[in-house]
């Protein structure tokens, strides 16, 4: 009896309700800015097929269709694999030739200002055309593809149902653009859902800190504090999608493997965008107001764009290894290590003053990885819906 009373006393003395970590007003403002998530789906005004269920289904079929490539070798899904968070888990993939940029995940790919590691495109549909035309990737011959699709009665029927026109009535250029827009309609549905961090954020916004470690562990919360504070990751990885949508030079080498030259990143990306006949300033933008082309119109080419690469989203980042534009960093731990030991000389020569080596200790690195891992939510994408084209079967 005496022993029980003793244990009860010890328990009462030791037990304290856990309220998680305390956050300053500034930290709470930052946390608030990282949501809400998921965001509402918005129609892409540059793509007349955006959010149309027939176009989504036809785009889904095209995404998995190897006929889009030369000799029926590759489909989009061969590199953007649904069971690998819509990327390929390889540092660098190989199509008809070795590639020098890492395959980006397609999660939450809709409504970004720029596409490609160098921002070569300003819409998802024009970005979708790029791998088809690239000789190292799908190497599509649009003349052959048009004939192939015309001979497929089922596809022809579904295509006509969605576009109100026969494949034969399209010029090759028009067909290419339409295929890009259909593919984009499907890709807009590839999304990540609410993560542990998002549940934590919602709880914090309600100003209820009680038990919020059930959503985000104390370790991950310490990582969050670093992310929005001392480590300053949030300066570039900002907003609900954990990216400002722009570009930065963080000191990843821009030399291409095997002495194949340099990857100029954003510098070449802007030059390519300006030459792109499918950019939003052109006639294929389905928004006659061109209000969606403001960024493209005002973009300036600067010397500092040289060696800058896209700031990627960190949503589901634990599932999208390896990392960086050239896939040179293998794991999340390695990413933290990379930022901990940034080459200051290299950065002072070309990089932004914003960057400095983090010099994180082991515990801080672990917390940072815990936080980044908490950004993973369930992945969803449009599923097969062939009954839409039942009259074509």
């Amino acid at each position, binding site marked *: 009896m005496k022993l029980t009373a003793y244990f009860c006393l010890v328990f009462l003395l030791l037990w304290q309700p856990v309220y998680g970590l305390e956050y300053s007003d500034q930290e709470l403002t930052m946390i608030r*800015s990282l949501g809400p998530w998921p965001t509402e789906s918005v129609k892409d005004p540059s793509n007349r097929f955006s959010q149309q269920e027939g176009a989504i289904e036809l785009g889904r079929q095209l995404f998995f269709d190897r006929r889009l490539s030369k000799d029926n070798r590759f489909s989009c899904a061969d590199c953007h694999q649904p069971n690998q968070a819509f990327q390929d888990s390889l540092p660098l993939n190989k199509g008809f030739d070795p590639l020098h940029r890492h395959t980006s995940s397609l999660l939450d790919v809709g409504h970004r200002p720029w596409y490609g590691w160098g921002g070569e495109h300003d819409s998802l549909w024009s970005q979708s055309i790029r791998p088809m035309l690239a000789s190292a990737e799908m190497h599509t011959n649009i003349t052959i593809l048009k004939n192939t699709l015309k001979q497929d009665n089922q596809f022809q029927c579904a295509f006509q149902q969605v576009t109100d026109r026969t494949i034969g009535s399209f010029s090759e250029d028009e067909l290419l653009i339409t295929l890009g827009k259909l593919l984009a309609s499907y890709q807009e549905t590839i999304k990540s859902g609410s993560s542990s961090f998002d549940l934590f954020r919602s709880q914090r916004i309600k100003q209820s800190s009680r038990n919020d470690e059930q959503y985000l562990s104390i370790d991950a919360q310490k990582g969050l504090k670093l992310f929005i504070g001392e480590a300053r990751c949030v300066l570039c990885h900002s907003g609900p999608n954990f990216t*400002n949508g722009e570009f930065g030079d963080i000191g990843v080498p821009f030399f291409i493997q095997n002495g194949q030259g340099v990857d100029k990143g954003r510098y070449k990306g802007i030059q390519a965008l300006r030459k792109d006949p499918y950019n939003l300033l052109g006639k294929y933008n389905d928004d006659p107001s061109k209000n969606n082309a403001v960024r493209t119109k005002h*973009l300036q080419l600067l010397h500092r*764009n040289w060696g800058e690469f896209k700031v990627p989203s960190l949503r589901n980042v634990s599932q999208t290894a390896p990392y960086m534009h050239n896939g040179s960093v293998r794991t999340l731990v390695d990413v933290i290590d990379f930022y901990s030991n940034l080459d200051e000389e290299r950065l002072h020569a070309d990089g*932004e003053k*914003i960057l400095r080596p983090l010099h994180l200790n082991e515990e801080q690195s672990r917390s940072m990885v815990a936080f980044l891992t908490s950004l993973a939510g369930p992945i969803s994408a449009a599923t097969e819906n062939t009954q839409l084209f039942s009259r074509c079967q």
Partner: protein
Amino acid sequence: MKTAVAARIGAIILAVQSSSYVLACSIPDDAGVTIEQDGLTIGIIWQQDTPPIVGEVFELNIIACEESKPFVGEIKASAMMPAHNHGMNYQPNVTMKSPGQYLATGFVFHMFGTWRLKLNIFSDERRYDIEHDLTL
């Protein structure tokens, strides 16, 4: 006949122009920022009356009054982050909508922190370099 019509049109244009010069110029109450420098008063009205949001395209209306009269001239706009020593990735464009009223488009502040908005305002006679710091 043609000369007479042209003269009449010219007179009308001159009258309209001179009347606008003598119009009083004042900064509206809803201006988000008011700056006074060497007899020039600038009012900045944020698009949709809210300060810029990180990563979003925004535009701003600029009201420029010189000695209480609408300023007529040219304005060049830019912005940079002093702490990081870099500017925007975009080049804004400023157009005069009417004497003293300007519209600046094409701004994107892509990072949290302090941004310095720079306005170079000049006419044939004078030049003003205005700076205003804004923390997001």
